[in-house]
């Protein structure tokens, strides 16, 4: 039998429940507490309660925790049914004794399993975590605690995206999203921007253009389009903002009635699918015509205009697929079709006047 002793702080909460907190090494925590993943016994009874490991989540945590300055202020939560004795010291302090026998660990990890797994895989012998412990009278109460403790609502995505530009030290996968969120912020809140106040965000609920569609446009361009060529500059954000803003200045001028003040349900140009597809038109005009400013985007957009059906008419997307102006939805396959239609119409239109010019 192994015995662990900790000095802990006790909190007064529900009568008849012991709740206390102490610091411990993750390896020790895993030797006195088990992670009981949810499963079925052979006769179909539910056992355990924890969800399964999420490899990518663990990797993100591990990446962060390997950093020298990594902190983990929130506690992992362990529930005990037995195997623990608590002795009062003074000033709210208690002495906790945990007895681990050969074949069972008395504690159950209620919250923090991914963090513990992440920590167990890295070499940081001095690193301690807070353990917040609760003693339950039986397994049912323990499972109930688990559900209550984990029943927090995740933050809405749009709020996370709006917070992103101002948060440092995020996992790798957020960085692309963060860059585009930053450009959307600039587009929405810079005076003189063609999209000033137009993008719907948590702090701008009256905006009409979807923030996720604008972010998609910027991420597409940053990974495979015009904005990618700007990434090597120190002032890449300013340049990306200018490019997109100039493009939509031209869009507003050429497609005025389908643009100004229109809600997405009345104009496909302001709808998620239209915004994302027009991003590819921007990339195309930038790459093949060298367009950077509104005056350089306008001629191409004018050539494209007769082929569009933003507010009325029909889209001849393919030989066998003609749709009414509002028959395009915000789905990847519709965006793909609209993109291909717009870009190939634009290409053909650009080709014609050149042929004439070349005689």
């Amino acid at each position, binding site marked *: 039998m192994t015995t662990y002793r900790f000095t802990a702080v006790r909190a007064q909460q529900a009568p008849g429940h012991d709740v206390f907190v102490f610091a411990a090494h993750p390896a020790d925590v895993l030797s006195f507490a088990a*992670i009981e*993943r949810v*499963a*079925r*016994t052979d006769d179909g009874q539910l*056992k*355990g309660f924890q969800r*399964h*490991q999420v*490899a990518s989540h*663990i*990797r993100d945590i591990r*990446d962060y925790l390997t950093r020298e300055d990594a902190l983990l202020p929130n506690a992992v939560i362990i529930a005990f049914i037995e195997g623990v004795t608590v002795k009062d010291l003074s000033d709210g302090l208690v002495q906790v004794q945990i007895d681990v026998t050969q074949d069972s660990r008395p504690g159950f990890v209620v919250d923090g399993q991914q963090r513990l797994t992440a920590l167990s895989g890295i070499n940081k012998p001095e690193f301690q975590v807070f353990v917040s412990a609760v003693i339950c009278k039986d397994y049912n109460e323990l499972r109930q605690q688990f559900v209550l403790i984990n029943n927090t609502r995740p933050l809405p995505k749009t709020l996370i995206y709006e917070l992103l530009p101002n948060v440092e030290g995020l996992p*790798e996968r957020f960085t692309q999203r963060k860059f585009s969120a930053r450009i959307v912020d600039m587009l929405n809140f810079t005076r003189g921007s063609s999209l000033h106040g137009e993008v719907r965000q948590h702090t701008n609920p009256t905006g009409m253009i979807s923030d996720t569609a604008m972010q998609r446009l910027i991420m*597409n361009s940053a*990974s*495979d*389009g015009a904005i990618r060529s700007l990434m090597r500059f120190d002032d890449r954000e300013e340049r990306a903002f200018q490019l997109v803003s100039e493009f939509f200045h031209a869009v507003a001028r050429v497609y005025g009635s389908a643009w100004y003040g229109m809600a997405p349900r009345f104009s496909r140009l302001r709808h998620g699918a239209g915004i994302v597809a027009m991003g*590819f038109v921007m*990339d*195309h005009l930038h*790459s*093949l015509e060298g367009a950077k400013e509104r005056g350089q985007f306008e001629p191409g957009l004018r050539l494209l205009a007769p082929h569009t059906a933003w507010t009325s008419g029909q889209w001849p997307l393919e*030989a*066998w*697929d003609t749709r009414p102006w509002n028959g395009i939805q915000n789905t*990847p*396959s519709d*965006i*793909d*079709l609209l*993109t*291909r239609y717009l*870009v*190939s119409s634009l*290409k053909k239109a650009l080709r014609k006047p050149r042929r004439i010019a070349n005689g």
Partner: protein
Amino acid sequence: MKFLYSDTQDYVDPGYDFLNDRCRPGRERYWSDVYAHEFMDPAPYDGLLVSMSAVRQAAGVATSKVRYSTREEQRLLRDGARQFLRYGGPRFKDTMLLGDCGAFAYVEHPVPAYAPEEVVEFYTEAGFTHGISPDHIIFACDLTNPSEQAVDAATRQRFAITLANAEVFLGLVKREGMPFEPLGPVQGWSPKSMAEAAHRLERMGYRYLAIGGLVPLKVDAIKAVLTAIRERIRPETEIHLLGFAKADSIHEFTGFGITSFDSTSPLIRAFKDEKANYYREGSDGRLEYYTAIRIPQATENARLMQGIKRGQFSAEDLLLRERRALIEVRAYDRGASSAEATLDAVMDYHQFLLRGDGTGAAQQDKALRKTAALVQRTLKHQPWKECDCAVCRDIGVEVIIFRSSNRNKRRGMHNLSVYHRHLSKTIQGTA
């Protein structure tokens, strides 16, 4: 004879951290990654084939994981396939870039997913050097040569569509000023009908034919087809074999005047084959194969995760065994562990890939013994130590571990390079 590899976005992260199984920090998919022709010198193929169905979504095209995203398709059309595939510059200046329609992706559809106009436009914009007219696969090849009346209407229709498309296609390519060399696709239900198709394509004006529908055929059947075709066409007409799965038997096909063929099998077999995962040039001029050592990631492998979810295995326990297997294999490579101990550790983990598959203990024991014998042979011969390709030099024993795409695709690239060298020798040997 040119060997073309059919691109399915096969690139690897050159800075991958094998000990921690992580991509290099800051790695951007595609941009930071390298294709086999960038990683290896000489490049392990003579050209690339790109299927339109992998790039462009269309009605009736099966969705696949490796399909290009809209933004990638748009960039490919803006920049051209050569720049997109980073297959340009003086090193690859004269290499072949062949476009096809990827007829497998719409095989169940009554008509091809793309019309000739659309295909010509696509090949032209993407800047291919060669392009195949949109064909429609006919599967069954009957060596008894049944007549046209004896086959079903659907087969006759596929035959007719393929030829009618080819005629329109060639006219369009000529009208555009031959921006690429057009290939006429040969489809048929028998050697004789395929020879007939080849003959008609030649009469239309095609100088280069692509023979389709070979994938399910045995070596002898393919020979019968090629013999029949060669008898009906001019000797100078060039031949490409589409999706040639018998690439290993290439020495049997040197007499048919084949200009080019494409195959994915050396790369795909690195992770799709049951046991032939690692190629080696044998002493007798033939290819030899080894089993890669499977040590999948416990919390990412679908099979193991199922067992964990059902409560059959414990995740922590599997992680421990997984780590032990990796440590042993690496120690063995350094000479710090024995083949027996390594095999034990590998099989101790490997058993969980079989346990719980419902076939019963006796069946599982048998399968385990089989695998153990194959792994033992790999461990004993240590083939990765003999190879001096860029992959094996760079990552050593990791190449033989069957685990995550960065190892498996690298092993595929090694296979491509062994195969490419083997092919050159075969051709020289018969010249």
